[in-house]
Every structure is written in C-alpha cells, then in structure tokens.
C-alpha cells in the first residue's frame, strides 16, 4: 500500500491511499484503502491520515476517522491520537501503520510492524526517508 498526506499553502489538508491489497486475498476482497474514514481521512483544521496494514482491522477500528475524532472531540494532539489508535490496533493483533499530518504541519508516522516505508518534508523543509 502507498499513501500521502499534505498541508498546502491555503491551509487545506488532503489524503490519498492506493493499494493492491493482501497477497493471496480472495478475488473481490476489499480492504481499508478505499474506505473513507478507515484507510483515508482528511478534515481541515484537524488532520489528514493514510493507513497501511491488515485492512480488516483498519475498517473495524475506523482508523483514519478515529485519529481525527480523538483530536477533534478529545483534544488530543496528533501524536497522542495516532499513537493511541495504533496501540488499540496492537491490542487486537492488527498490524500496520499510518502517516498523519495536522493543521500546523506536524507529521507523525507510528506503526507496529518491523518496518514501514515512509518519508516526509515538514515545515522545516528537511527531507526524511525512513524504513525501520
């Protein structure tokens, strides 16, 4: 799975996700990537999220929207919200990770797998590319 989240000059947030799914999946199986609120979510003033992992867990936990809801209603920070969502996923033995960005351009990318391909350029303009 691949994905991207952005904060543009107008202060608007956007998110996108694209995937081939799971190896050896049954024909017709759909994961979280095309499910708005699960694998992808963006809301101005709150956050933008794109996920990757075992999609059935991401759908049941409505992962993208859960990050936003924790921030919007619970006043959590991006890091607190994203980490809590991944921790909840781990409790259920769900595997994967997310990239998330907030309205101030802060980026966070938690995951519970051995690695996750990820890269970002924050408000400082520095390019970061990480795998493990």
């Amino acid at each position, binding site marked *: 799975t691949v994905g*991207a989240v*952005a904060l543009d000059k107008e202060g608007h947030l956007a998110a996108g996700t694209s995937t081939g799914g799971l190896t050896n999946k049954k024909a017709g199986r759909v994961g979280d990537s095309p499910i708005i609120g699960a694998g992808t979510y963006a809301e101005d003033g709150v956050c933008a999220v794109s996920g990757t992992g075992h999609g059935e867990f991401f759908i049941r936990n409505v992962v993208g929207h859960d990050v936003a809801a924790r921030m919007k209603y619970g006043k959590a920070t991006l890091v607190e919200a994203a980490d809590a969502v991944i921790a909840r996923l781990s409790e259920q033995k769900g595997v994967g990770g997310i990239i998330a960005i907030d309205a101030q351009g802060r980026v966070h990318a938690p995951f519970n797998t051995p690695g996750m391909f990820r890269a970002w350029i924050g408000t400082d303009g520095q390019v970061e590319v990480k795998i493990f």
Partner: protein
Amino acid sequence: SPIAFAIHGGAGVAPKDLTPEQEAECRKVLAQAVQEGHATLKSGGSGLEAVQKAIIILEDSPLFNAGRGSVLTAAGTVEMDASIMDGRTLQAGAVAGITTVRNPILLANVVMTKTPHVLMIGAGAEALAREHALKTEAPEWFITPKQMEKLRRAQKKSAVTLSPEDIWMRVG
C-alpha cells in the same frame, strides 16, 4: 500556512526482507515521491495535486504494493483499490477491484470530482476511467515476477500455518 507533506510505501517490511541494493532503490523512489509532492505544494499547488503526484510515482514503481507491482489475489490476478479525500470540503472519491487503470488514484479523483458518488467498483469504475480517458494497461502489465513468487510462498505457507510473521509478509 506552512506546508508539509508525508508519504508511506507500506508497512510490514523487515530488515531481512531487503538487500542493501533493494533498500537503496526503495529510499530513492520514496525521496523522489516526497520531493515531487512537496515541490507541488511549494509552487502553490493544492494538497490534492501533491498527493496524486506522489502516489503516481509510487504506483508506477514496481517496488511498492500499488499500481504496477501490486500483490496478487489467490487467482493470480491484480485487483487494486484507491481513495482520495479533500479536507476542505470533505469530498471524497474511491475505487475498488480495479484491474486495468494504470493509476487508480487518478480514478479515485475522477469519482470525487466528476460524479456525485464516493465509491465505485469493478466494471463500472473501469468504464468511468475510459470515459475520462485515463491511461490503461493490460492486466498482465501490473504483474511482476517478485509478486508471483510472493504469492507462491504465501500459498505454500497458508496451507500449513498463518503466524503473525505470515501476516507481515502479506500486508506490505
């Protein structure tokens, strides 16, 4: 507003899964994609444009599980899904079960911007792609030898066990 941009290329990869050469190649494509998206924002492009530009690079690379290089179904075929969401309006578009559209993220954007719908699947979504002249490829174009081998190994392992390690191998 300040600008910021982030991408991912999938979770589940372990150090043993990558040779130094493969890791270098993955890092190169990730850097290219994140820089392309960021450059779009820097020049005044919208977040939606930046997201699509970066994802197209990752979809076109056979190194990641999207577009060409997607993992295979049990039947040995490629079925791709994608979505996009605009935080400004809460408009969203998504597609599932795509087999011929080269860049499913562009089709998700068409669903969002050119139809009153949010999610379209299969033949209807493919027809929409043709209607909007999106680039298509033969279904075999998306299949890489690496993913054929991965499917073979997954089918062999699934017949015996399904450990967390197997799940990691399957999600990437």
